[in-house]
């Protein structure tokens, strides 16, 4: 496999990764998709999940992203990630704590949506939608963390 593609991972704060790889599998909003050299032009949103980086047939890198966008060209694949953590750095315990916290916050917001009315309710509703999105991201992160520790054992 001489044909390699340029894989770039960028967060709003900095360029995290820019390297030549054989294949990446990206968690697109409508299903995972693999990108090889010469892929047709594509722009997709991402759902929270794990990006697999392949060298030959072997996964060399697994990176969790909380969401974002991917732009695919025949030469490469650029991922604009909201939050990116290497799966090997995920700690199931810490993620569980994060999940509990966000679940608590979401429950509080749900309660205020039920209680309030008018513009205050709208504001709470908006916050709730955001909290639920974050919650979904953390659930996916937890799944990734658990999967890793299961594989380690």
């Amino acid at each position, binding site marked *: 496999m001489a044909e390699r593609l340029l894989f770039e991972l960028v967060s*709003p704060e900095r360029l995290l990764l820019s390297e030549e790889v054989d294949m990446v599998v990206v968690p697109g909003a409508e299903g995972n998709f693999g990108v090889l050299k010469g892929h047709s032009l594509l*722009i997709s949103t991402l759902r929270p999940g794990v990006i697999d980086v392949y060298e030959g047939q072997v996964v060399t890198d697994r990176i969790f992203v909380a969401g974002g966008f991917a732009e695919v060209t025949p030469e490469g694949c650029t991922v604009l990630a909201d939050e990116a953590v290497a799966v090997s750095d995920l700690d199931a315990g810490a993620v569980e704590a994060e999940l509990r916290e966000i679940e608590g916050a979401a429950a509080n917001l749900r309660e205020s949506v039920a209680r309030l009315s008018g513009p205050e309710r709208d504001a709470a509703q908006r916050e709730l939608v955001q909290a639920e999105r974050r919650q979904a991201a953390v659930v996916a992160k937890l799944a990734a963390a658990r999967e890793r520790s299961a594989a380690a054992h």
Partner: protein
Amino acid sequence: MASLKDLRLRIRSVKSTQKITAAMKMVAASRLRRAQEQAEAARPYAQRMERMLGSLAGKMAGRAGAPALIAGTGKDDVHLLIVTTSDRGLAGGFNASILRETRRRIRDLQAQGKTVKLLTIGRKGRDSLKRDYGKLIVDSLTEVGRRQLGFADARAIAEKVLAMFEDGQFDVATIIFNRFKSAMTQIVTPQQLIPFAPPKSAEDGDKGGAVYEFEPEEEAILGELLPRNLAVQVYAALLESAASEQGARMTAMDSATRNAGEMINRLTITYNRTRQAVITKELIEIVSGAEAL
């Protein structure tokens, strides 16, 4: 004429001021370096975001039902100005030039019969605008990125602005900030955020006629991309502003240190002259006293 003691005290006080301004200059210089690195690091994301938006907007162009963030509300009656200033002073003309431009814009817009609302970032902007335009300020934020400016700060501001936009509280949003050119020069830049003007290069861009596939469809992606792009734009503006602030402070403190040095030299000359005059006078008194005997 000032006495010797007064002069000595004066020199000592100017010297300690000089020490402070020199130290502030050093601090600003190191913060400037950090801010520049941060701005540099954030550039790849912004560039790629812009490229994606360009190809999307190219496809959406001329189609009905474009999102309000691009198409606007169809009016431009209410303008929101986001004014980025610093929390701290002693930064030369940094805040003054932003505020001058802001005041000019407010007057212009009001003269055209538009309503103006202000969102101030930074304590200096709030304090100064509160006096003349207190009623226009809808929100003011201070201590943004006090420790380290993060994307989360920008996102919080963007979400606030978006919520206001969805509520129909304004039609056009513009952010006014200092663009960093060099430590000596900062350029006051007004940039329209809403409705967002897609980059022109996209239509005749390097990709030529290449057509992207979209997953999910364009509208859905655009709906996700635009709010995110707003946060990216705000983040870029905040980073520029932070670098400009440190640059302006560094330059201001540099000249303050130099001025203090000149003042010390002048005062030292006066001090020496005065001391010599006192000695001469005493000698004359002694000599003429001896002659009188």
